[in-house]
């Protein structure tokens, strides 16, 4: 019981990070029907901006203030990256055949990775734990269930960001424009919605969410390198597909499920095959629900 609770905590924390990245994939897919493979690398850049800001602020004694600056700086800079990536690599190809932006995205991913490798070095960068310690939830027969403050912070920040984001999509004029472009870009344009601007804003928001995930990843694990975007990106993309690509709640659900599968599989079966477990479950789900758990059938967009 205590052990299962601990694995639940582990899985939920990991799943929250996956879910936050997965939103970026699913949003872009929903709005322009392409998979933005550079998204994982924007997440990586978010983590690097975080470490640069936190290192520069070493003298600062107030940890919460430092974290706030790191989150905001990272979100702004990643937003600029997201905007530029769309402008440079995807917009010129929007009218082209479907695979063109996909290949452009893979190219963009390589460019970003090599750029960070050259400018920041190939070595790992580490920061000490900024929020150490935690709370003991339960002690069953010597097994202590630990919820670290960092895990709690990840869950709270993710839920807050998701709440704000859901409000944005469902209640604001921008959200309405985004949903309209998603349903039918041409019709939305005819009705006076600036589709280019809406798409740009989608990229900016998605990248800012990836930046949040990047900084939280940095704070939780403490170690980053130019390579983290690839693994995290693949997992988050899987989460988006599992939840139903194009669906926002689906992305979060998919992320949480993958986190939980990884934790429980490692906890009760073999650690070595946790990725195999994740992809097997994905394959089984897609066999019975081809558009994912919460996805809609939209054959023409595939």
């Amino acid at each position: 019981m205590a052990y299962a609770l601990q694995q639940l905590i582990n899985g939920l924390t990991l799943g929250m990070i996956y879910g936050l990245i997965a939103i970026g994939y699913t949003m872009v897919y929903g709005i322009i029907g392409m998979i933005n493979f550079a998204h994982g690398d924007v997440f990586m850049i978010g983590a690097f901006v975080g470490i640069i800001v936190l290192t520069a602020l070493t003298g600062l004694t107030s940890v919460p203030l430092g974290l706030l600056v790191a989150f905001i700086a990272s979100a702004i800079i990643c937003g600029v990256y997201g905007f530029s990536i769309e402008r440079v690599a995807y917009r010129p190809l929007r009218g082209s055949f479907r695979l063109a932006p996909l290949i452009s995205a893979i190219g963009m991913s390589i460019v970003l990775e090599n750029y960070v490798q050259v400018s920041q070095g190939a070595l790992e960068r580490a920061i000490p734990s900024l929020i150490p310690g935690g709370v003991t939830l339960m002690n069953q027969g010597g097994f202590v269930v630990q919820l670290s403050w960092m895990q709690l912070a990840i869950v709270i920040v993710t839920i807050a960001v998701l709440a704000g984001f859901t409000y944005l999509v469902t209640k604001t004029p921008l959200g309405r424009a985004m949903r309209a472009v998603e349903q039918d870009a041409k019709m939305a344009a005819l009705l006076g919605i600036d589709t280019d601007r809406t798409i740009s804003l989608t990229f900016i928001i998605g990248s800012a969410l990836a930046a949040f995930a990047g900084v939280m990843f940095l704070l939780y694990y403490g170690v980053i390198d130019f390579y983290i975007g690839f693994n995290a990106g693949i997992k988050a993309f899987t989460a988006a597909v599992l939840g139903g690509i194009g669906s926002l709640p689906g992305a979060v659900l998919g992320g949480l499920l993958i986190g939980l599968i990884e934790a429980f599989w490692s906890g009760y079966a073999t650690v070595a095959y946790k990725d195999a477990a994740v992809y097997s479950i994905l394959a089984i789900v897609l066999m019975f629900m081809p558009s994912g758990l919460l996805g809609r059938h939209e054959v023409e967009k595939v």
Partner: protein
Amino acid sequence: MKPRKFRVHNFFVIHQKQQQEHHVRHILFSTAALLALGTGLAQAQVKIGMAGPLTGSNAAFGVQMKTGFDLAVSDINKAGGVVGKKLVPYVVDDACDPKQAVSAANTLVSDGVVMVDGHFCSASSIPASKVYTDAGIIQISPASTNPAYTDNGGPFTFRSCGRDDQQGKVAAEYIAKHFPQAKVAVLDDNSTYGKGIADQVRANLGKLGIKVAYNGSYTAGDKDYSALISRLKSQGITLVYLGGYYSDMGLIMREGAQQGFHPQYFSEDAAVTSALWQIAGSAAEGTLMTFSPPAEQDPAAAKAVAELKALNEDPTGYVLYSYATVQIWAEAANKAGTTDPTKVAAEMKSGGPWPSVLGPVSFDSKGDVINAAYAIYRWHDGNYAVYALKP
């Protein structure tokens, strides 16, 4: 994960080609200059290579290797070169990726090197050794300890470090002697090296009557080990043996401390870098590991250590092993009176012992160091130092 590394390689190859072109131009220019002057005496040259992980998660070791290699080349050139020829160094990056290791090896072969100091990871050294053997080039790894490297290697395959059957035995004996009551978990990262050494430790612990309570493999490059740590914690593990590389080990220690899990960690020669402490912080305190005896304390190494200190370089880890690799080859070539790889390889095995910064080194017929020793090191306050010279 693998295709990414390949891209890095492509990037590198372009760089390398530019260097080559530059080199060719340089040679043409100098030849022209010499002809024009009608005089001048160019010293004969011989090319030697180094291959190691200069990027990727083991880059800290590639940097150590390169430091030792560069210093050895400059020292030998200052002393007049090898059989009167000046050494020209070629350095390539394999990122510890088997595919990239083979392309790196091919790059060195086409560059025309006669000897290679490398690679670092066993999973790189083994496939690369086929390329060097086919091309008839001497390969001396300062770090690859997996037995298969020389067991299945050719006449040109050598290593200047020990083997995992020696290293794993020392680790198991130390655990059996000093932690007989411990509840032991043996983890590996599923790599050629990590799994190889962990299996040696498992087998030797079994022989010594120590039961391993948990055996597991994680995936190298993973970042989340929280589930694995909870599992070790729930089983009451008190000693964790880690077979893998420092970046993953450091994260396991760090995440363990976050969950209040503080076992005795025991590791191996892929943890001898300050990068481990940078990642794990105080969670690595007291970690024990096996590594070759401290070369920097050997009187034979005094000169090289002084030079490294003057250059502000740390002489620990693989620096002196990489230095010795070039030095041993140079000694053997000088004695053979040629840089022809076939003759030098034969001389290395039959000639010895070769004076080196590691002390005198002799090779057996497989290319392994005779009587390679392992010592126990311990991490304390951000530094590692010898803890016991034998179990």
